[in-house]
């Protein structure tokens, strides 16, 4: 038995002294919030009205569907994959919701969320069992969902005449808080709890960091992945509900443009695109940052061309700040 050699590794006391995250690690995990704060201040400097309650609430409201959309996809990214189909799936879901509302009424939105979850799970299954890179499966999914949406909607936007059963997706609670924001926070909280309270966290992390090792440790890698894709799909469905609630109609291309913003939100939040490191709360912050850039810049009067340039520059800087490099071995 190798007795502890004088003055090395054995820390004072016993191994039970857990070496927690260092100060710098804590700082990097706070970075997304800092970036958000800086951005708000900057915008307020240009246009003081931006700090009005109503303005900030509008940002929060705008960020909500994006946050929900990205939260689900975050799980897929944590598992080391990527889901490019979320936006198209959300568009399809919006069409289905608009079509089903008259018939199913209050059951319509749960039905849509369930359908979207199934669609996600199917992609997950294809990825896991056919061994196709998630990038490709979901890229294919993207175009397939778009086609289905075009066909079932007859390539037209489907108006929603009676939206009572989904109005909760676009009202104000406690005076001026957008209900959508509450939904987003609830979704993120639910996911966060589900992951952190159960062994899922280490299962997901292990899968993301080192799939081979995870498998040989008996982690149900395939199950975890399919699950992640299902959740991602469900979130896309829910995001669609929020969008329909505020657009009063569903459209076959309604949410398509949210794909890259969603991915950006995930990465800006500090989740490693390579998998393993990150979390859903971070994505919530990321969504706010991205929304500020998407909407804030233009409304404070930045012209189209410079808006685009600034967006590009700031998004990169934001990631540079939020990325915790100690957790990412090589940056590709």
């Amino acid at each position, binding site marked *: 038995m190798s007795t502890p050699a004088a*003055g*090395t590794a054995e820390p004072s006391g016993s191994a039970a002294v857990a*070496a927690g995250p260092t100060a710098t690690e804590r700082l990097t995990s706070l970075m997304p919030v800092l970036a958000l704060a800086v951005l708000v201040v900057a915008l307020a400097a240009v246009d003081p009205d931006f700090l009005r309650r109503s303005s900030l609430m509008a940002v929060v409201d705008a960020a909500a569907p994006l946050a929900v959309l990205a939260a689900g996809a975050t799980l897929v990214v944590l598992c080391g994959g990527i889901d490019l189909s979320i936006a198209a799936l959300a568009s399809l879901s919006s069409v289905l919701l608009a079509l089903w509302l008259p018939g199913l009424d209050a059951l319509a939105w749960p039905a849509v969320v369930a359908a979207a979850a199934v669609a996600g799970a199917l992609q997950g299954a294809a990825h896991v069992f056919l061994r196709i890179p998630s990038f490709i499966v979901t890229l294919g999914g993207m175009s397939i969902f778009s086609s289905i949406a075009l066909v079932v909607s007859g390539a037209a936007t489907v108006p929603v005449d009676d939206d009572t059963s989904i109005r909760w997706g676009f009202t104000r609670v406690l005076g001026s808080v957008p209900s959508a924001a509450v939904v987003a926070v609830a979704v993120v909280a639910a996911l966060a709890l589900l992951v952190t309270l159960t062994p899922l966290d*280490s299962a997901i*992390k292990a899968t993301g*960091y080192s799939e081979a090792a995870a498998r040989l440790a008996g982690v149900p890698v395939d199950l975890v992945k399919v699950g992640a894709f299902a959740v991602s799909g469900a979130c896309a469905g829910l995001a669609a509900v929020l969008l329909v609630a505020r657009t009063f109609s569903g459209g076959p291309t309604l949410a398509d443009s949210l794909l890259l913003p969603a991915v950006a939100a995930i990465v800006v939040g500090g989740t490693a695109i390579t998998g393993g490191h990150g979390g859903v709360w971070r994505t919530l912050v990321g969504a706010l940052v991205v929304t500020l850039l998407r909407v804030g810049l233009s409304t404070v009067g930045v012209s189209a061309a410079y808006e685009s340039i600034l967006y590009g520059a700031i998004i990169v800087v934001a990631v540079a700040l939020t990325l915790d490099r100690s*957790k990412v071995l090589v940056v590709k």
Partner: protein
Amino acid sequence: MSAHPRAAVRPAPPVLEVRGLVKAYPGVRALDGVDLQVRRNEVLGLAGENGAGKSTLLKALVGLVRPDAGEIRVRGERVRLRSVQDAADHGIGMVFQEQSLVGNLTAAENIVLGSEGPGVRHGFYRWATMRRLAQEQLDKIGSTIDPLARTDSLTFAERQMVEIAKVLRIEQRTHDTPVVILDEPTSVLEPGEIETLFEQVRRLREFASVVFVSHRLDEVLDVCDRVYVLRGGRAVGEIRPAEAEPGRLHRMMIGSTAAEDHYHGGAATPVPPTREPLLTVRGLTGTTFRDVDLDVRAGEIVAVVGVHGSGREELCRALFGAVATSAGEVLLDGRKLALTGPRAACAAGVGYVPAERKIEGMVGPMSVADNMTLAKQGVRCAGPVVVPRRQAAVVDRWISRLSIRTPGRRTAIGRLSGGNQQKVVLARWLVGGDVRLLLLDHPTRGLDVGARSEVYRLMRELAGNGVATLLLADSLEEAIGMADRVVVMSDGRVTTEVPCPAGGKPSPLDLVKEMV
């Protein structure tokens, strides 16, 4: 500070000299003022427990680790090594503990990688020249590998030859004898391959100085002219093999007397052959092994030996469901074991310790605790919910139980030394306390004497508790020492079975005859 090195100084300045080198990591002083000298055309051995600081020291010598204090002198002059390039320019090169070749390039490209010289003209490869340059290196070490073969098509041993050939390129840079560093080169080689490696080392001595690290003390004493012993980041002594024997070396390493019986043979509890087998394999067939029959009784340790390509590794993986089988059946305790995948195996109480620790054994960035409870989430949960306190308790118990050297349970396992990582991986299957069959693929690879001895004791203990063990041993000695029975495999078939009761152990030579 030990006075040994200075006492032994000779008139001609040593090729390489290290003075008071210090390197501290969070919670660890990896190097704590090391002194050492490497002389011309000598093979210098480094021995020490896991975490003693060997790799760190060597990395400092090739510019991969920046020392916090101390100095490095090459041929008398003080140098600051910022990169592998720097080190190479000073004639120092290293073969790493984990292999460092690019699989999708040719051997030739790997050998000249980073120092192509005439092999590249105006950015264009001149394959003919490349080939020649590489061939020169390979000839030096008398290797017959085709330089244009894709590296990932070579065997492990061949790849190591390529690595040595690659390191020897540093000769071109310096006009004095180069220093070639080998960190645990033998830990992954078969007995036959080790012999050829030793020939290489002796050949190298003709024109280079060699620093050699191994946990197999007999090896160290066999090839080295001098041996430094590292402990706790310090050089605690120097030994001349002539006047030494493993026992003494070991004592110096751990600073206490070595366990008399390395393999704890005494603790072995003979298993009555009448007892029903726990694991029964019948006509199992995979891609590299054919109709294998095998029995392992509860409490029995069965070692499978065989050279590369004997198919024993894949057989081991197959039993865990990690590779597909085409025929045959496996019974665990009379019930059929579905070989659908690792999950099924785990559920049935089978545990597997893979040989490729870094890639398959551990999840580098995850904490020691999470790695340890990865397979048996139950131990840290109440119902479906994780209870951090439970995890802490279990993990800490096993950390001290196996005396795993780590700053804490929340430290990333990647930061531990090779040996300590392996202990965590092994503990993964024990925390549950429900494992019935252990498949150990080179479980002591890269472990120091003490750690190994500890692992052996554990295996005995588990066997005592009725756990059946299938062992792919690191060496024949280990196989014979530990096993109740040794099964010999060669090209995919079980050829013979040799009983090794506590009393009448066979000699390695008997086995070697069977293997080839």
